């Protein structure tokens, strides 16, 4: 029996979700994991204030080092992102990101499904530059420390995975709820609704990590290729792509999460995903 990409991918997504969030018992006491694995970053978006999280969030870590007193550029986190990007590109989004899996599950809720206007795809690059790269360095306190602006004003993963669970467990924290929390809850609700209606709404519109990995799709070792000699132009691959990519025209599109749906759909076996190039 041969499993298609949809089965293989779901399996790996579940394993990655479990490995990223292994400390389930922390939910009980409203604690977070404080061990040494948090020296390392998860490849996908996963808030380190989630009680179950076992690793640091790469976007949170990048802002923390860039906004720290001593440094304004994180070689460590940039190096990790570069390595993940060169090896996997946006396959990280498709196969390893815990928040990506949550978005896909939300999209399974029955509802009318909508397409996304292309112009919105560029918003994530604006979010990356302004909230992740500029604000934590440019807006600092008297000690020279900047705040993680993306986490503070936008990140729905932090609100959901950290905020909701920790606030439910601690009355003291609940007393500090103010306008910022209301803003973040509003963004979370829009994200949830958006994901139900539009496939990977957050991933495509707002996620700075998706923006970074997308830039690597052109050179990533794990890549997609289409054999033009086999392709008969039927367009099935384009029709099944939920990220609205045409793999024949743009196999290295920054929006392709290497999900493999087009590989499964192609009747000519013209589409291929892999680490190596097609022979010949």
């Amino acid at each position: 029996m041969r499993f298609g990409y949809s089965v293989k991918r779901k399996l790996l997504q579940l394993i990655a979700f479990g490995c990223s969030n292994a400390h389930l018992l922390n939910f009980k006491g409203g604690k977070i994991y404080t061990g040494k694995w948090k020296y390392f970053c998860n490849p996908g978006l996963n808030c380190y204030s989630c009680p179950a999280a076992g690793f640091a969030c790469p976007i949170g870590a990048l802002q923390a080092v860039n906004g720290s007193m001593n440094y304004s550029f994180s070689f460590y986190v940039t190096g990790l992102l570069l390595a993940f990007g060169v090896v996997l590109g946006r396959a990280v989004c498709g196969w390893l990101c815990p928040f990506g899996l949550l978005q896909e599950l939300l999209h399974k809720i029955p509802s009318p499904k909508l397409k996304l206007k292309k112009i919105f795809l560029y918003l994530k690059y604006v979010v990356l530059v302004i909230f992740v790269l500029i604000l934590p360095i440019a807006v600092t306190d008297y000690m020279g420390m900047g705040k993680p602006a993306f986490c503070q004003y936008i990140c729905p993963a932090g609100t959901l995975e950290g905020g909701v669970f920790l606030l439910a467990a601690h009355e003291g924290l609940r007393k500090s709820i103010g306008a910022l929390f209301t803003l973040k809850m509003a963004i979370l609700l829009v994200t949830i609704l958006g994901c139900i209606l539009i496939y990977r709404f957050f991933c495509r519109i707002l996620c700075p990590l998706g923006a970074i990995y997308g830039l690597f799709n052109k050179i990533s070792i794990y890549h997609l290729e289409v054999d033009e000699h086999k392709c008969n132009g039927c367009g099935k691959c384009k029709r099944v792509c939920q990220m609205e990519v045409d793999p024949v025209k743009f196999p290295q599109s920054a929006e392709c999460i290497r999900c493999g749906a087009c590989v499964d759909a192609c009747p000519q076996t013209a589409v291929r995903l892999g680490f190596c190039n097609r022979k010949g």
Partner: protein
Amino acid sequence: MVDNKKKRLLFLRVAGLVIAVVFICFGGFRGEMNIVLNKAITICFECIGLG
């Protein structure tokens, strides 16, 4: 033509990985990993919407 494209791609991949390793080592050497750990093991008020 195709060969040149392949060579360029290989160069970019190798260069990217070499730079990544150098960055990770240099960042680790100057103590960035401690900042990451300290941030990740305390509840981040910004993340949870209180900061």
